């Protein structure tokens, strides 16, 4: 300790409680707005294709981050809301480190016909299963309840 005095009574150190609470409203952005408006009405996804490097971006963007070109409206494509599970993990704790009531299978899904992936939760009771390589599809909320966020996808389920 580099000071001339220290606290010696263990009851004297104090703490001050506070927060940085605020609410956030994230606009979807130009690409996101088009995507989320699409999934309100459809059970499919949208992706964008870079005209130069031909990479298909999912989630869609208005620019290619590698070539740094703007992606024109003509290069948007509709794709099925399906994919292959590339990786998965079984999450058992919440942000406080407390056990979740039910573990969740979080997976990284390679969306069909694109070079992109999406995080998703697989609904299953069998946690011992090998999820890698299985095909899954998105299960959406009923159309009248969709709001245009990722929450419109309830979970992913295995396609037999």
């Amino acid at each position, binding site marked *: 300790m580099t000071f001339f005095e220290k606290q010696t009574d263990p009851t004297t150190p104090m703490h*001050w409680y506070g927060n940085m609470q605020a609410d956030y409203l994230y*606009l979807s952005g130009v690409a*996101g707005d088009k995507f989320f408006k699409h999934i309100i009405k459809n059970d499919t996804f949208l992706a964008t294709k870079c005209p130069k490097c031909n990479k298909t971006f999912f989630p869609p963007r208005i620019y290619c981050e590698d070539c740094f070109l703007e992606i024109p409206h003509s290069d948007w494509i509709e794709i099925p809301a399906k994919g292959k599970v590339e990786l998965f993990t079984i999450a058992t704790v919440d942000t406080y480190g407390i056990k979740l009531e039910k573990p969740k299978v979080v997976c990284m899904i390679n969306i069909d016909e694109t070079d992109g992936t999406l995080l998703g939760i697989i609904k299953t009771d069998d946690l011992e299963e090998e999820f890698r390589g299985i095909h899954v599809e998105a299960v959406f909320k009923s159309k009248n309840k969709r709001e245009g966020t990722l929450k419109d996808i309830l979970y992913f389920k295995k396609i037999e």
Partner: protein
Amino acid sequence: MLKETQSYPKYAPGTYVSNKDIINKNITYTWWEPEVQYSWSLGPAYSRFLQELKEGRIIGRTCKKCNRVLIPPRMFCEYCYRPTDDWIYLKDTGTIETYSISYLDPNAQRIKDPILIGVISIDGASPQHGIMHYFGEMKPNEIFIGMKVKAIWKPKKERTGSITDIKYFIPIKGGEKI
């Protein structure tokens, strides 16, 4: 919605979204409420400062090298870059260094009865060393820079060890003993 080019160079666009667009859901958005809470350790200086406030006293710290009396107290002197030396009790009176008459509440909502707020240099501390606090028992048109003020403390039972243990500062009338 793109802005037409007005002069060289061609400026980048942007798409304006109004509050109405959001309320009418013309635009999609994602809502998120993070959970960000803290319990800062206060260390010796602030711990003692708050404990003394609970007792109805204001305490400062001295630096022998630059001969300053510091309020709020701290364990080190930022000018000399050395530990500070001693605790010293200060008076609960002072002078208004600057002030504002606020018609805004903390959430930027408008209010009718303004909040009087300012910086008070505390008597006994070095010149212009003070704290921010409220003023009370005076009208907005009475306040001025240089006014002598004194602290009004909350009743002892209500004090919790916080800067709000001082209710506010009120003017010292002419002739009144400090």
